[in-house]
């Protein structure tokens, strides 16, 4: 599958060929930090939205001189890369109050790293009529800032077009996920994750074309077999393909997720023809399958996990938490209760941003699969 190879390459390099080509055309790149930030706004302004990921970072000596060891290794890795100049290709940066680590990382980046266009969004922690009005106002200010910086008006028409393009991405990714429902899907969880990583690192038009090709190519692909259990991954921000590979090398097959780099990123479309596209964005993003930062959405969050597990016939859930990620660490309380009620085994794993202690993790994964699986 040639498209898969291309997407895997694009999603695993920093900044990657697509970004270099984009920049070569004299256009801007705007880094953003969280799945609650609408890429559509950035794209409509003529810039490339690029989700910030410190791909390949494995140590943070520079960042440790500022942030504490009580801060997660994702935040520290981002700071490390920013301080080393690895993020210099980002002309702009937008962040939000995703979690305590990321909102403080923004403060530090603002103070310590080279000047670039920066913006911060105060995103509500609930999904209510007032919250939608609030978030719309925040998006309006973000849009104004982009317009002023890029000297290009973001008319409603451009925004609607960006929403349509992104909806096409969502539609194609849903098709990709449909394939995973099969007893013997054509793609592994590792491969799907590689495809997903590219989604936030290249222009959507190009991505959609490659993804369409990939979907065509999967028709003739040999189905996977020989796995011991169908797994679903939930929890903290998760972009480490090596971690998924480890689970699959141990005999699992990752068929579903409730992750912000996975299904939660694209699950529901945004209304493209609504009266006010900013309201459509605010409403859709606050309504999407929720991160643990959304306090009032906990019942819906659990319902989403349950529904995904049912639809994808999941044998076990991998609940992974990044060390010091309080938001997802706290979910263990309710998750332990509901997974028991549902009768779905759950393995709780704490990890760093990069893969450490692979031997121990593999051992735990194998023991879990031994308990829940069908045997090798």
């Amino acid at each position: 599958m040639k498209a898969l190879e291309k997407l895997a390459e694009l999603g695993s390099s920093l900044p990657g060929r697509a970004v270099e080509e984009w920049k070569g055309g004299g256009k801007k790149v705007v880094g953003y930090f969280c799945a609650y930030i609408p890429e559509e706004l950035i794209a409509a302004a003529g810039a490339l939205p690029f989700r910030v990921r410190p791909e390949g970072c494995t140590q943070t000596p520079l960042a440790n001189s500022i942030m504490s060891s009580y801060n997660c290794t994702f935040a520290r890795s981002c700071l490390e890369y920013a301080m080393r100049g690895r993020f210099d290709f980002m002309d702009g940066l937008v962040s939000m109050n995703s979690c305590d680590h990321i909102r403080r990382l923004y403060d530090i980046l603002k103070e310590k790293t080279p000047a670039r266009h920066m913006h911060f969004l105060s995103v509500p922690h609930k999904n209510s009529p007032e919250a939608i009005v609030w978030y719309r106002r925040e998006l309006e200010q973000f849009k104004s800032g982009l317009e002023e910086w890029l000297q290009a008006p973001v008319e409603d028409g451009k925004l609607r077009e960006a929403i349509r393009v992104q909806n096409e991405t969502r539609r194609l990714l849903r098709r990709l996920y449909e394939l995973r429902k099969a007893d013997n899907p054509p793609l592994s969880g590792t491969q799907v994750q590689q495809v997903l990583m590219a989604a936030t690192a290249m222009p959507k038009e190009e991505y959609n074309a490659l993804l369409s090709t990939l979907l065509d190519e999967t028709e003739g692909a040999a189905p996977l077999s020989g796995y011991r259990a169908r797994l679903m991954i939930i929890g903290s921000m998760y972009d480490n393909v090596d971690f998924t590979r480890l689970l699959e090398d141990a005999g699992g097959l990752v068929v579903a997720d409730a992750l912000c780099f996975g299904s939660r990123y694209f699950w529901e479309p945004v209304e493209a023809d609504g009266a006010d596209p900013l309201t459509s964005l605010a409403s859709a993003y606050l309504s999407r399958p929720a991160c643990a930062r959304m306090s009032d959405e906990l019942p819906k969050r659990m319902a989403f996990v349950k529904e995904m597990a049912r639809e994808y016939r999941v044998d076990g859930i991998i609940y992974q938490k990044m060390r010091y990620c309080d938001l997802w660490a706290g979910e263990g309380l309710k998750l332990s209760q509901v997974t028991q009620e549902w009768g779905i085994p759950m393995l709780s794993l704490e990890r760093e941003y990069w893969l450490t202690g692979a031997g121990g993790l593999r051992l735990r994964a194998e023991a879990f699969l031994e308990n829940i699986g069908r045997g090798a």
Partner: protein
Amino acid sequence: MSSRRNLAEELSGTFSGVAARTASKRPDQAWLYEGRAEYWKRLLTAREQGKSIAWVSFCSIPEIFWAMDIVPWPMEATFGILTGLSKGIGEYLDIADRFVSDHVCSANRSMIGAALAGDMARPDVIVHASKPCDSGLTSFSNLAEYLGVPNYCIDTPYWNDEATFEYLTVEIENLVAFLEEHTGRKMDFGRLQEAIKYSNQAHEYYLKINELRKLKPCPSPGVLLGHNAGSFMALAGTPDLVEYTRAQYEIGASRAARGEGQVPEEKLRLAWVYVPVMHDPNLFEWLEREYGAVVVMDMIGQYVNTPIEDMSSPKKVYRGLANKLANMPMIRESRGPMEYHTQAVIDTCRDYRCDAAIFSGHMGCKHGWAIAKLIKDRVREEMGIPMLVFDVDCFDPRIASPQTVRSRISDFLSLL
């Protein structure tokens, strides 16, 4: 088989006992415990009195609850007190650790553990705020869902502008509607006005108390700051808090008039710019005794709201409470841009004429730890004073014992 604890009974007994002993031996100090002894009794007998109970985070609005015959039970304050008492909170942390990671704030984990142990009367509702931290947000909402208790999160935006206060006003209106729905009690505006009147009076005294603390020498002990925070969390909106602040102010004013300081010779004035070490309640007294160092202000004892003048309508009152909520200790510093935090620290160091600052880095506070170094640098640049930053779990002595903490502080003070 071990018998379970009843925390309301335990704390009611503790405060009643201390209040009675103080009234007998030091009648001039009786005000210090009387209000809170009464509070715990009220909580313990809430059901018999036909009142509802709300478990609340420390960033809550007690006035609303008192006006609706709901007893607010501030969770972090409860476990902050308990960890300083002999039985501690270790067993609760152990229970919680079976479900949530050990890096989640121990104030929240001990709440989870005690709730799962069944040591607290089941509440009618749980109310918390989305900030200052992720730990509180996730712990309260998960616990509420786990127990099947109705839960309301006051969403506190990042900014400090007019839109923020309008949003918070609606959040408070919605909170009242939520409480009415889930407790069956109606908000009586007359009672709310009365609660705000008490709250205003207490605040006026408190602002004057803060002014006294700025004097050299400081006429009031550091230990009062923790008592003040606990009292505000539970008693705002009651006459008990007015009495508490009035007595404290009058004693401080009288000492100030005589030129008396808390220590015979005030050698150092310290700003305690983070969470106090709750498992060592005598720490500030030790600093005074050993070093002549007075903690003149801390973060959680610094209530600096302006009284709510306009009480002409519920909306106006909620608007005033929105201001109050946004300015509550820790919400004020930790919910928005770093500048809110650094400025608050610098203002404290400057206004209270401090010689040094101490940042007790509570390991549960990831937002605080992320910028501790930047705050330290800013304090040095702008105020020319040093700031000690050290690791501690302010609620769990097993991480850094009182002896360890005191040793760190001793090393720091020896360099000044």
